[in-house]
């Protein structure tokens, strides 16, 4: 079994126009930087991107907006991005907003083979429009459907050659669920290790979910809000 590929370009060799891509990351934290750059280089268009945010104007997924590669975003929060705003207002970009927890749970449901779930989040708001609703144990709940993708792209801290992944701190966020919900999951890792080096009790994503893996390079890890205290 060999899931290791040389680099990001090889990892997305079969990515085509119109693909649905889930991308891990919360803001610019935990972004699969190598894979985003490779998609940018490849120039595929009409992408649907499922990701909590859409980067900033010139960082993260934002660079795919600059080149007009994205047709639709499925996200929970898309502030901090002027180009996004412009394309949306001009009708060039379709946007589907989900409450953050609903987005995470829909991705999990997609990966877990569930047909959907009832959640209280968003009941009675415009998010509920057009959705089935019912009262369960005295609470109004709405029905939410699973999300799946053609590709999931994530960045982990460590990964072994079989695809077992370990994340670091809040860089984990949406990545574990996304790995489960795509036809092809690609992981870039900061440290590619041999099979057997990761503690089996502490694997965040079991190898079954990862199809391709490589060690990323040139991590920029930009910080959006550099808040500090005096030392």
């Amino acid at each position, binding site marked *: 079994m060999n899931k290791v590929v040389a680099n990001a370009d090889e990892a997305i060799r079969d990515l085509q126009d119109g693909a649905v891509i889930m991308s891990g990351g919360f803001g*610019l934290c935990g972004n699969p930087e190598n894979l985003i750059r490779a998609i940018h280089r490849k120039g595929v268009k009409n992408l649907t991107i499922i990701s*909590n945010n859409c980067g900033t104007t010139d960082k993260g997924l934002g660079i795919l907006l600059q080149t007009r590669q994205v047709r639709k975003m499925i996200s929970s*929060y*898309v502030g901090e991005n002027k180009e996004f705003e412009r394309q949306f207002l001009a009708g060039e970009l379709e946007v589907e907003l989900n409450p*953050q*927890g609903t987005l995470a749970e829909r*991705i999990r449901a997609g990966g877990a083979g569930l047909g959907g779930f009832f959640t209280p989040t968003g009941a009675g708001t415009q998010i509920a429009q057009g959705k089935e609703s019912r009262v369960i144990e005295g609470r109004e709940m709405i029905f939410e459907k699973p999300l799946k993708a053609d590709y999931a792209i994530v960045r982990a801290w460590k990964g072994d050659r079989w695809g077992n992944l370990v994340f670091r701190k809040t860089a984990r966020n949406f990545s574990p669920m996304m790995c489960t919900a795509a036809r092809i999951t690609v992981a870039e890792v900061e440290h590619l290790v041999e099979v057997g080096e990761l503690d089996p009790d502490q694997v965040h994503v079991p190898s079954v979910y990862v199809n391709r893996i490589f060690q990323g390079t040139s991590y920029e890890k930009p*910080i959006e*809000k550099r808040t*500090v205290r005096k030392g």
Partner: protein
Amino acid sequence: MPLTREQIAARAAQELRDGYYVNLGIGMPTLVANYVPKGIDVIFQSENGMLGIGSYPTEAEIDPDLINAGKETVTEIKGTSYFSSADSFAMIRGGHIDIAILGAMEVSEQGDIANWTIPGKVLKGMGGAMDLVSGAKRVIVAMEQVARDGSKKLLKECRLPLTGKKCVNTVMSELAVIDITPQGLLLREIAPGVTPDDVQKVTEPKLRISPELRTIKI
């Protein structure tokens, strides 16, 4: 005299108890962490997947893999844990967070809250706000009584798109502490030198005044 933003945060912090798990929204609610009563353990949750938020880092401690839901660099404490976004919102939605303290643009006397969008303005998205207001055991809104344009924010019905229905328990403003009850708004505490009438003037629904009305102490 109306409370300052810092004083509103300090008043909100008085609701914290030993062993509480708390989620703070961005803006004024973030300040609440500075006023945790001495001698108790309060653990702050961040919906991007962290329980046990510490202070901001020193320059040397900055770690791009460690941010809060407002995308600010933070630190961990002893006892911190990290988890995925699905697990984080399972925690929030499942009623495991004792208090969420949030800002708001509008709150209704039924406890409806609007704090995520203004039609026609910039599209941003609700992030985790809808999950937090529907999931936390208790929702406290920390906000000023009147918007910058002079309009009231505590209303009979919200005019802006809702974040959640019937979910706010208490509003803490520069003038008052107001509970949302099945009988409507109940004025429980009032800022020093402020009268119930002063509060009523900037509140659209009729206020009931608690028989135990007292002055806010910071």
